[in-house]
């Protein structure tokens, strides 16, 4: 390694430094053009009164007024709480069910690999296309979900209006998200459980620790970095949730399922208040960026295992 590079190589090929940049530059350039430049543009727009449906109107700087408006708007605040409700319950349900499934699959019963693959399927499908079909399953009269729910609870199907009822609609989107993404949490938890070396359990057996103790003092703490990773990623994803909710409820009934992304879409592409929408977009971006920092930290922690 320390010997100087052979002359032949230096003459015939490019220097390593040049190759490194030539290899990395195209990807970075594309990201600069399609991600960073638009982001900077959005930051600029967020300080103006620009409206995309009136491209010829005079654009004026409005200082921080857009941010002020978004951050004092009770409707947007309401949308954040709707998002919070969605994010909180999806994470709780997915973590509990996902971890439980991983724990069971880790028993390595016969055929566990096959059934794991089956469980993983929903996660790979298009949230929009599948979300759209769930609308049919949720139909009060003809839908399978309402039919099954009424068989279990005894409530007549016409009253199980999952998408039309103000108190049920938030749960309708939580159910679909949980159905889709529990496998994701399960898969990562399973990796966490499998990363725990057997000798730790063997040592615990020697110490005659009960299964219950082993679970809480070995299994859970050792799998925790993995659980954190899954929780953070699902948190980020669901914080910006758009497609599935748009197709299931479109934010309705009223605005009980209007999560942040839907409010943003309405401000940007229906009211055409581009400046204000950009300010809102930047706020969401800062929030996601903050979480992404923590996520990468968690990622590195897991990588070291």
């Amino acid at each position, binding site marked *: 390694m320390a010997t100087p590079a052979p002359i032949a190589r230096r003459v015939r090929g490019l220097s390593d430094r040049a190759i490194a940049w030539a290899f990395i530059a195209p990807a970075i350039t594309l990201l600069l053009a399609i991600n960073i430049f638009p982001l900077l543009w959005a930051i600029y727009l967020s300080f103006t009164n620009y409206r995309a449906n009136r491209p010829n109107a005079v654009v004026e700087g409005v200082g921080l007024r857009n941010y002020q408006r978004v*951050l004092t708007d009770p409707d947007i605040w309401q949308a954040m709480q709707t998002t919070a409700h969605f994010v909180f319950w999806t994470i709780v349900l997915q973590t509990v069910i996902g971890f439980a499934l991983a724990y069971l699959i880790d028993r390595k019963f016969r055929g566990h690999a096959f059934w794991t693959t089956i469980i993983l399927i929903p996660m790979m499908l298009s949230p929009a296309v599948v979300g759209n079909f769930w609308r049919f399953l949720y139909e009060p009269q003809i839908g399978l979900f309402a039919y099954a729910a009424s068989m279990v609870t005894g409530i007549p199907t016409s009253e199980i209006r999952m998408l039309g009822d103000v108190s049920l609609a938030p749960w309708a989107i939580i159910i679909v998200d949980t159905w889709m993404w529990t496998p994701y949490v399960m898969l990562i938890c399973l990796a966490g459980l499998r990363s725990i070396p057997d000798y730790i359990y063997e040592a615990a057996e020697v110490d005659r620790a009960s299964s219950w103790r082993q679970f809480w003092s070995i299994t859970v703490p050792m799998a925790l970095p993995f659980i954190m990773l899954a929780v953070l990623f699902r948190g980020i994803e669901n914080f910006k949730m758009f497609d599935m909710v748009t197709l299931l409820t479109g934010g309705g009934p009223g605005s009980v399922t209007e999560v942040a992304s839907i409010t943003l879409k309405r401000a940007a592409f229906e009211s055409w208040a581009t400046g204000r929408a950009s300010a809102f977009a930047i706020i969401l971006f800062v929030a996601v960026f903050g*979480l992404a920092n923590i996520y990468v930290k968690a990622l590195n922690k897991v990588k070291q295992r």
Partner: protein
Amino acid sequence: MTDLTRTPTKTSPKRPFFFRRGPMENIATVLIATGFLMLFQPFALVLYTYSLVTLLAGTVMFIIVSKFPE
């Protein structure tokens, strides 16, 4: 303490608290998490109003302190 028995390299003068990565990163993480709770909470509009500032502060701090050595 047993400091005397250690080799000098091991007890090399610690960087002041504010220039060490570990604790500062945790503070930034807490700040970001607080910002998130402020954004999400249903109790006071004023907390929601200041959530962006908190998030921004936490994120900027995180980026800066992640450059510090351990």
